[in-house]
């Protein structure tokens, strides 16, 4: 498989969704970490990974996602942001957590 294109519209794959945040027994801090549920598993994301994935709503294309991330990470160059987002999304696509 290939990394996402400029016009790709990344989104959570079918059967993958965010876990509810208001879990009183959760061991982690929901302001830092979030959980994506998928068949037979779950993955916790934080930092840049979470920031990227939260923008993958099936509406924004890769250029728009990178532009949004640029606002949050002003000290990082757009090329570097795109590279990191591509690698992250390609890895999740292989696991069938993200489609684009």
């Amino acid at each position, binding site marked *: 498989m290939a990394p996402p294109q400029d016009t790709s519209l990344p989104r959570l*794959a*079918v*059967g993958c969704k965010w*876990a509810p945040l208001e879990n009183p027994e959760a061991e982690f801090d929901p302001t830092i970490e979030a959980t994506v*549920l998928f*068949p*037979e598993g*779950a993955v916790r994301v934080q930092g840049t990974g979470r920031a990227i994935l939260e923008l993958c709503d099936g509406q924004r294309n890769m250029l728009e996602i990178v532009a949004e991330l640029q606002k949050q990470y002003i000290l990082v160059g757009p090329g570097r942001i795109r590279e990191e987002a591509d690698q992250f999304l390609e890895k999740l696509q*292989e696991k*069938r957590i993200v489609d684009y």
Partner: protein
Amino acid sequence: MPGPLALIAEITHRCPLHCVYCSNPLQMTAAKAELPTEDWVRVFQQAAKLGVLHLHLTGGEPLARPDLTQLVAAGSKAGLYTNLITSGLGMTETRLQELVGAGLDHLQLSFQDAREDGGDWIAGTKAHARKVELARIIKQQRVAFTVNLVVHRQNLDRLDETIRFLETLQPERMEIAHVQYYGWALQNRAALMPTREQVDKALVVVAEAQKRNAGRIRIDSVVPDYYARYPKACMGGWGRQLVLIDPAGRALPCHAAGVIPGLSFDNVKDHSLEWIWKESLAFQKFRGENWMPEPCRSCDRRKEDFGGCRCQAMQLLGNAAATDPVCELSPDHHVMESALQGVHSTIVDPVGAVSLREFEHAGKVFWTYRVNPRE
């Protein structure tokens, strides 16, 4: 103490299939003793509060319960990721639409073989053709789709063909699981246990399939522990991640825990799930490391495999508190060799039979089909 991550809800033991490797206990819950809808709904709400993420609705055949859509809706409303593990028998397009509408996230459809005759032989009934038809209907719905294949001596030689057939059903995920020897499978172990050669070949076939389907179908496999050097981390550790509720409402740390004598299982009719998880003796019995004998107690692997499977230790050694004999460090490891000694190359070719009656006959002399519980 962290709460459980997954709840396995065995909502009925009734099933139209009679698979010879069924993981249900030999002593099944009668239909009239099954928990009513409102009890399950309460348990799902308690589970979500306790931190459970995934709800696995299984059986028996969950579709045998007319209130399945209500149960899916209750799980989904509680915020649980809702998974249905099904043979597909009893599913219609309308019913599937209702389930997806109620919030079903994932559907896992079992297959027994790539071939109709082989599949029906294992299941002891006509089921295969219906499953193939259903796979097409599932693909039209917005729900994650896994196909599950249980492998054993009788179908491993055709594994490549079978996986290629399952690929044509276009699931997002495929699960290739070696038989685990509990319940009915243990009864039929002599006919199901693969040879070492079959196990080695299967590893290669699965690895090739994973490569071929990368990015398209995620293929997970469950390896057979009888041939392993170290035991599996059964259930992710006793009372550590999972809780199973049987059709009558008894809470068990795993599918097979009923085989361990002296354990009593508290019922969700009498106690909250939180109380059961934290306080019930059955969940505390083998939790943590205090119960461990040597060589586990001082072994670095104890944090990875938690001493292996308690039920397997019970079944093979008569002592649930022993190191899982699968482990080559176990003083009782030699019992695995004797268990494997019975494995020879008997493979029945069901394709030679011309009718289901003939399969049934071949099966009856060969193994015991799972029966249904009383009404």
